[in-house]
């Protein structure tokens, strides 16, 4: 379904791609704040080519963008006219009313956009997505084969069985890795796994957390079974660490971000053997759950409220240039683009498969961030074996409730 949308989009690309000649702006200040990875670098550097003749373009690409974005956009005039947002950061900025609706600008400059790129909240376009991301399975088929496993695992139960075979065959002591660094990363693994059960995080229509149930316990047990096959240092493993371990040939089964796919499959930083054996596939499901245990993420363009209309328009036009089909064509393998003209590649089958398998997007709920933080702080005790799953979930709920009260979501 997802793949189809993308390829269909490609077929219709010609219809709209001529709408923007040059960048179509004559004046204005463009300043962009964003995360820092190859696909975004491509977008912002293409946007920067609009500079000149009364138009200035400045970019700040940093991993710490989410720490400064609220303060930077609260200022009036805002420090940045645009932030490249994702599911979770969009909500944070919208909570404070720092983003402006884009409907008019989409009508004026967005003829080349797909309908599914428009992120609408309550009927208003608040962001324009340009790429998709999700955590999914990376497998080393050569190692699996050597251990007598012929097919790529489709469920986490199969991942565990395969890991046991690899260990039993003395191929690797610690074949499995997830991004399990205590804090945000570990919480994301919990969220992914819990998503696979199909259960809700909150009581419907309220901010009351509801993860202390059999699904929550099963989720924790599954995570614990998986980290039993991970290097003992797993609580320090973030995306950079797992990618490095993978490229060093120390892993056979890992759940990593789709955006790492092209970096793993390129000919840098690893041996030909590892690259040739690496296959990306959809995130596994587990426990007869209804959908892959992963969350879908998008990255997209959002424009500040506190800038002049002129700057806002110039920014939008410049960024439309940044995500034009030409840019996507030149950087096809850098991401799973949602833009017309994108051709699926081996690096994108994991994300596409996860989406077509019916994985849910990361919840765009204002209090999800507080729960995410509570999970990250409280479940490592359980994984280290110093408390029960039930106690860990009670702790998460208590930590969340205190935090949500402080933010005014609960009384």
């Amino acid at each position, binding site marked *: 379904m997802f793949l189809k949308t993308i390829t269909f989009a490609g077929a219709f690309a010609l219809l709209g791609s001529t709408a923007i000649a040059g960048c179509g702006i004559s004046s204005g200040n463009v300043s962009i704040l964003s995360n820092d990875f190859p696909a975004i670098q491509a977008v912002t550097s293409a946007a920067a080519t609009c500079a000149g003749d009364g138009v200035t373009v400045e970019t700040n690409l940093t991993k710490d963008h989410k720490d400064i974005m609220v303060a930077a956009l609260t200022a009036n005039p805002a420090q940045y006219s645009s932030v490249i947002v994702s599911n979770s950061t969009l909500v944070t900025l919208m909570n404070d009313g720092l983003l402006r609706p884009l409907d008019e600008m989409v009508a004026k400059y967005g003829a080349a956009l797909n309908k599914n790129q428009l992120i609408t909240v309550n009927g208003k376009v608040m962001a324009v997505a340009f790429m998709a991301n999700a955590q999914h399975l990376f497998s080393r088929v050569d190692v699996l084969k050597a251990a007598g496993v012929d097919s790529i695992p489709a469920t986490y139960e199969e991942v565990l069985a395969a890991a046991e075979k690899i260990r039993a065959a003395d191929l690797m002591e610690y074949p499995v890795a997830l991004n399990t660094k205590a804090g945000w990363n570990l919480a994301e693994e919990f969220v992914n796994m819990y998503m696979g059960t199909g259960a809700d995080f909150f009581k419907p229509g309220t901010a009351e957390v509801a993860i202390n149930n059999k699904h929550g316990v099963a989720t924790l047990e599954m995570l614990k079974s998986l980290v039993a096959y991970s290097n003992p240092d797993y609580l320090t493993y973030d995306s950079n660490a797992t990618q490095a371990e993978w490229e060093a040939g120390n892993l056979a089964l890992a759940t990593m971000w789709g955006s790492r796919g092209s970096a793993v499959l390129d000919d840098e930083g690893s041996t030909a053997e590892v690259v040739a054996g690496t296959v990306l596939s959809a995130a596994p499901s587990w426990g007869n759950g209804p959908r892959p245990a992963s969350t879908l993420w*998008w990255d997209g363009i959002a424009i500040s409220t506190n800038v002049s209309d002129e700057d806002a328009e110039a920014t939008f036009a410049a960024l439309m240039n940044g995500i034009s089909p030409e840019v996507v064509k030149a950087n096809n393998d850098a991401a799973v683009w949602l833009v017309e003209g994108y051709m699926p590649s081996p690096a994108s089958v994991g994300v596409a498969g996860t989406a077509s398998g019916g994985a849910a997007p990361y919840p765009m709920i204002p209090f999800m*961030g507080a729960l995410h933080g509570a999970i990250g702080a409280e479940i490592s005790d359980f994984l280290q074996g110093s408390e029960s799953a039930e106690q860990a979930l009670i702790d998460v709920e208590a930590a969340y409730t205190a935090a949500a009260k402080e933010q005014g979501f609960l009384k």
Partner: protein
Amino acid sequence: MKNRTFFWFILPSLITMLLFIALPIVSVAVQSMHIEHEAVMVEVENCGPFGCKKELQIDVEETAKLKEERPLGQFNGIGTYTNRNHLAFIEIGLALQSSNGFLDFISKALNLPFYRALAFTLTYTFIVTPLVIFFGFIIALGVNTLPKRIKGPTIFISLLPMIVTPLIGSLILFWMIDANGILGSALQRIFDDPNLSLKASPALTWIMLMVYGVWHSAPFAFIVFYAGLQTVPGDTMEAAMIDGASRWERTRYVVLPHLMPLTVFILLIQLMDNFRVFEPIVSFSAQASATSLSWIIYNDLVGTESQFFGSAGATSVLTIIGVGILLIPVLIRTWRDFNQKVV
């Protein structure tokens, strides 16, 4: 100095201290007593690349009105201080009632984030501070006896751990103790245990952080003591030698008493610094096994997508109180010494 002259002399620093120390602390304290406005929520339909879904969203206009009326948020008194993520009065009360035995109570208390952080912070402070003073003194004595020519380079090299930025220094150590790093693999060889990992067990993580703390701070104590050693009166030393005092006795009865005021100074600074232990926890990715009060503040402000200013403010005020309590004995002592001298 006349009072009037003294006043004009001290005024500039008084103003800067007021502006940059006192006022921010007051603002933090005020903020810690407020929480955000009750969020006005509406259910809306959100659509994106992966379909549409009905979800709760903040009603920005209504919330903006509330914010306009009371920009600081809702007054919460000491509610944030006593909630579960800080002093946890209710949870501690329950633990007192329900626990069988002191150890059970301790383990229940250590399950709460604030007390877990406090436990590490205090252990770190009380182990690292004396060790820093001890090693600083030993190094200073050693360097002081070196021939002049190699003294300079030795001092420079001994100061390196302090010169390196804490975040960078601890990152370097973090990579060295990795199972693939030089220290980590050496330890695995020595103990003949291929699975030994300093990052995996809480106990080893604590030890590692404290070793780092001593490594980083000992040069500070060293350089202060070394400077002090240059002022040890030669006459007294000579007299002691003539009396037949051994090297140990000279150190114990002449050098040490002479350096006592410096020791108090280092003690003060180190108690404050170590109570605020922070960088190594971030660099060593140690938060699963060890957290500190400063780390909690950091995590409230940048660890999640939304910032918890009230919570961070409350922990900051508690940290200030903690530093105050730690320093009181030392300050009382200094005050007494000072008064005696005046008399």
